[in-house]
């Protein structure tokens, strides 16, 4: 009763065109700098892993020397594009038939490597050992299969949001992705190779094979081949998906005539698998037998998994192995079985990158000296194929595509990402407000929206690099890549986990970076910041002339008005774009017409009165402010608000993006802006000097905000400063994401809805205002505790 996920004989290898159907340089990318290889060879698929470095352009801002400020330029700061080297993990999956071709290609392109060994795992590793050593000149170093599997599993669960999913065949969306629980242990991994291994994983390096079964994928394949004379595994699955098991199985109703009521066994339940075939004089169809066999094996595995889960008191059970790998048919029968045996108490979970676990694990084994687990990694949407890219039985018409290649690329993030310590319940936190995987109407709209906006993005990208002649060419490649992604998502919205506005935006950023457009808005941001700064003192002065109560409202209105200046919103960018000379005043005037009703309350969501009452109470200890756009937003909206908080004794932590996204202000830009403001404003200056105003980076390069993946430093600061107020500003961070986020302290979400479809959805109109001030339940707001108004 042991595991063997690899199959040493390979009945599935059939003659196949050995030419690679995609240009190999688009598959084995960045081979020039590749080092550290690992390979996982299974019964029919090979998974290759390597680590490489990627050189790409990043936008940097640098303040002009203040002593020579008048001379240099009238600009605030200088923008430069620099080369940066980052680390990336490449994983490629292809059919064993291509191994030789692939090895040749790798050998030809492997120039800079000092690598001497290749880590190998999987049942087929020894079969191809000699070939690999001869072709690559690397020594094959075998690693234990199960250890690799678990290592890989831990890695993807930790680093890839929406890695795990529940499969529901008849639901609106077949794939229901799980939120990333920061605490991944303990869990049960049921690996269904030719046999079944059941492994309990308690910590990174602590796991135990607690059981298994000999009835597994090999039984389905071997017995299925005998019964149906069908040789290939996926053909057997095809047969099974067309069969009627009730012709072969003896059901409860075949014995009872109906249900066995007192035990709650329904009539359709299988009483005896193959019970009807116990006769010599009847023929059974291949389809029916295959279906019956599939049920028999899936039910049996599900039952054992449940018994082990119960015995060890585990509720998270992941299924993997070649029996499961991307096959909706087996995911469905296993899910059914688990639901039946646990009455819904345990959910069968599957993994998007299940096929890569062994390769990832083998790679990690080889890279232990670099300690890859000390970093956070992120799935690169531009370089990854996504779920079901080559699934054989997803769509039988695409069978020819099983000869193509599947890829996963992961970027090493500069910063380690952790949860915001102020999340009420990290395990149930879902950043995104609308799951487009489940909401077909919304999906339709947003996919259309992003497709529509593509021309504009391409134009902006080209315009951002006026000195580079090939920019247009690159921008065109970007267009093709992103359009292709959108098309894929139209058919397979589940390809990268739950489809959300955030993932669509992030995918676009990844694609832009891929083609070296690190910051298409850098110059626009620069100009906007420049102009807005000129109005800062005037704005502050006019605010100071107001009464306290008038001022509070004006400050909120200022943040909201500032937030209208958003290049990410189509309704706004059209106005801004309409004036090529960037007539800031004109644009501002036009937009202000739109936001007249900023003053017209009640807003769509309006808890301003509660906020005002709260402001009459004692100051907050520390406010964490997630900022949004450059220019008017940050300078004329956010900064005066920050100033007020500082003045009333609240420390402020300004969290901005680590990397660029649209016209969002980056941490680098904000550093410079804040310095300049400090030079004009003693309150800000004092705040910086006394360390009561702090600028930190969020760790993100997204126009949206995932509070479960934030820079570790930010989390530390939040904890140290006893943050008791979180302010989230803007549509991307407070509406598309975090609209429903529950925090353990007071929170304020402010945004103007700059999209008429979304406004409509939320029951409002274009430019409706959301002002959502929340005090966590059970936690009396401070003004109730200490009721001394200042």
């Amino acid at each position, binding site marked *: 009763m042991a595991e063997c996920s690899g*199959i040493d004989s390979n*009945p599935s290898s059939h003659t196949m065109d050995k030419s690679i159907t995609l240009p190999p340089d688009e598959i084995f990318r960045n081979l020039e700098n590749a080092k550290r290889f690992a390979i996982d060879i299974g019964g029919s698929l090979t998974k290759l892993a390597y680590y490489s470095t990627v050189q790409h352009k990043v936008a940097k801002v640098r303040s002009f020397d203040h002593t020579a400020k008048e001379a240099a330029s009238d600009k605030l700061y200088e923008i430069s594009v620099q080369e940066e080297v980052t680390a990336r993990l490449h994983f490629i999956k292809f059919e064993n038939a291509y191994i030789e071709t692939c090895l040749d290609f790798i050998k030809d392109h492997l120039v800079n490597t000092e690598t001497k060994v290749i880590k190998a795992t999987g049942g087929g590793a020894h079969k191809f050992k000699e070939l690999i050593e001869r072709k690559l000149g690397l020594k094959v170093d075998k690693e234990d299969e199960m250890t690799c599997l678990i290592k890989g599993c831990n890695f993807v669960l930790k680093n890839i949001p929406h890695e795990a999913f529940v499969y529901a065949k008849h639901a609106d969306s077949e794939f229901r992705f799980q939120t990333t629980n920061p605490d991944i242990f303990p869990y049960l991994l049921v690996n269904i190779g*030719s*046999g079944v291994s059941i492994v309990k994983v308690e910590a990174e390096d602590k796991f135990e094979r607690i059981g298994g079964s*000999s009835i597994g994928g090999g039984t389905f394949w*071997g017995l299925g081949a005998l019964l149906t004379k069908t040789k290939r595994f996926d053909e057997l699955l095809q047969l099974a998906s067309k069969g009627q098991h009730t012709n072969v199985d003896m059901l409860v109703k*075949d014995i009872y005539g109906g249900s066995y009521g007192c035990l709650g066994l329904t009539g359709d339940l299988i009483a005896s698998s193959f019970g009807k075939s116990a006769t010599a004089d009847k023929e059974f169809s291949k389809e029916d037998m295959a279906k019956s066999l599939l049920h028999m094996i899936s039910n049996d595995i599900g039952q054992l998994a449940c018994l082990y889960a119960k015995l060890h008191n585990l509720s998270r059970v992941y299924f993997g192995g070649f029996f499961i790998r991307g096959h909706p048919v087996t995911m469905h029968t296993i899910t059914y079985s688990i639901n039946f045996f646990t009455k819904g108490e345990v959910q069968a979970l599957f993994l998007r990158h299940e096929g890569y676990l062994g390769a990832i694990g083998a790679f990690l084994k080889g890279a232990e000296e670099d300690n890859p687990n000390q970093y956070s990694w992120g799935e690169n949407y531009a370089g990854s194929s996504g779920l079901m890219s080559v699934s054989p039985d997803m769509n039988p018409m695409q069978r020819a595509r099983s000869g193509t290649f599947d890829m996963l690329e992961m970027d090493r993030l500069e910063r380690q990402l952790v949860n915001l310590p102020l999340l009420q319940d990290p395990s149930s936190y879902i950043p995104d407000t609308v799951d487009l995987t489940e909401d077909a109407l919304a999906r339709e709209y947003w996919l259309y929206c992003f497709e529509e906006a593509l021309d504009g993005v391409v134009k902006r990208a080209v315009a951002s690099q006026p000195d580079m002649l090939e920019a247009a060419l690159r921008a065109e490649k970007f267009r093709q890549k992103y359009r292709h992604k959108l098309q894929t998502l139209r058919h397979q919205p589940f390809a990268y986990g739950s489809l959300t506005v955030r993932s669509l935006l992030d995918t676009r950023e990844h694609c832009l970076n891929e083609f070296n457009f690190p910051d298409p808005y850098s110059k626009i941001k620069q100009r906007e910041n420049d102009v807005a700064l000129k109005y800062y003192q005037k704005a502050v002065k006019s605010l100071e002339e107001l009464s306290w109560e008038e001022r509070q409202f004006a400050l909120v209105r200022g943040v909201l008005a500032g937030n209208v200046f958003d290049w990410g919103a189509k309704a706004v960018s059209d106005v801004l774009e309409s004036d090529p000379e960037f007539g800031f005043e004109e644009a501002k005037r036009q937009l202000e017409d739109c936001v007249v009703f900023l003053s017209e309350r009640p807003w769509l969501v309006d808890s301003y009165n509660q906020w005002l009452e709260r402001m009459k109470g004692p100051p907050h200890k520390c406010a964490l402010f997630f900022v949004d756009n450059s220019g008017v937003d940050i300078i004329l909206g956010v900064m005066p608000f920050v100033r007020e908080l500082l003045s009333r004794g609240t420390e402020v932590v300004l969290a901005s993006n680590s990397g660029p996204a649209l016209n969002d202000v980056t941490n680098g830009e904000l550093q410079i802006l804040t310095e300049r403001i400090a030079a004009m404003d003693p309150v800000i200056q004092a705040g910086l000097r006394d360390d009561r105003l702090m600028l930190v980076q969020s760790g993100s390069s997204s126009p949206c905000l995932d509070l479960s993946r934030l820079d570790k430093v930010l989390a530390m600061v939040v904890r140290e400063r006893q943050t008791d107020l979180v302010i989230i500003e803007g549509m991307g961070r407070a509406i598309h994401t975090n609209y429903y986020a529950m925090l353990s302290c007071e929170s304020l979400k402010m945004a103007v809805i700059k999209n008429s479809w979304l406004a409509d959805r939320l029951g409002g109109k274009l430019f409706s205002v959301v002002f959502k001030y929340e005090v966590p339940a059970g936690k009396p707001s401070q003004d109730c505790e200490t009721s001394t108004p200042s």
Partner: protein
Amino acid sequence: VGVKCNIAFPWFGMDIGGTLVKLVYFEPKDITAEEEQEEVENLKSIRRYLTSNTAYGKTGIRDVHLQLQDLTLCGRTGNLHFIRFPTHDLPAFLQMGRNKHFSSLHTTLCATGGGAYKFESDFRTMADLQLHKLDELDCLIRGVLYIDSVVSSGPSECYYFENPTEPDRCVQKPYTLENPYPLLLVNIGSGVSILAVYSENNYKRVTGTSLGGGTFLGLCCLLTGCSTFEEALEMASLGESTRVDKLVRDIYGGDYERFGLPGWAVASSFGNMMSKEKRESVSKEDLARATLVTITNNIGSITRMCALNENIERVVFVGNFLRVNTLSMKLLAYAMDYWSKGQLKALFLRHEGYFGAVGALLELLHPS
């Protein structure tokens, strides 16, 4: 049991399963001359028919070796007979009942098993008989406890295998089921039910599996072309499952020490059949043997997990899958002992498949 009751003869208990009908018949041996005179002809004819034959029609069989002699039941002394025939021959049985005017005896026919429900109307329309339907698990437990308590002479009802992990020294030994609770009762018929029994009236069905005797026979018929359980078993006894199954040593060259898996353990049932060459080189006997081993081991695994979850150390296997199937019994004994490191004991009962029918008979005599 000693109290005399006035239930009219004939005394039957029936268990109509998915594959087999099990019938127990109590033949009174203490009939007085007076009784003899009063006894109607129909009753005599049934008694004679059932007790003088050992085979009925083409497929009915009386298991003479199981017959219990001089049993005192409800104040009467007599023999208890154990008869079985395939469920698909039930129409012929009903026809026989009709021909022998069974219905004129005004007896209650106590029946359990799914067929009691499924064929209830057939009994009424074809043989004019009214069934008294009984729950099969209630009957099963009642039957087990009763038979174990009345068998005192001859071979012990309950037995186990000593030294199950050493084939050469493995021998059948009697076992006294005096203080049986708690016990796990595994009934292997066409499918499998697993019960945790805490007392005669306190039990629960823990789980079940559809991989049972019906699966063994069904797959054997498809794979080998055989048509009876006996044929399938005969073939299995001649075959070699290691040609069909992939063992741990086939993959790792020996034991997989990291996980404590011995080389002889099956890694993948039918795993060798993934290869075309190996498919062509196996015999029907090998396939039958592999099917038997697969089904048996799987029942063993599930049983062992249930025993652990329910914290029960004694397991009693019953059901007709075990009839003349020493191969499976020894495998189960081995699996229980080996994988539990001696913690679990597998027990077997001689009247393996008849307990439901016995329970039904008891219900006739002592309604609970």
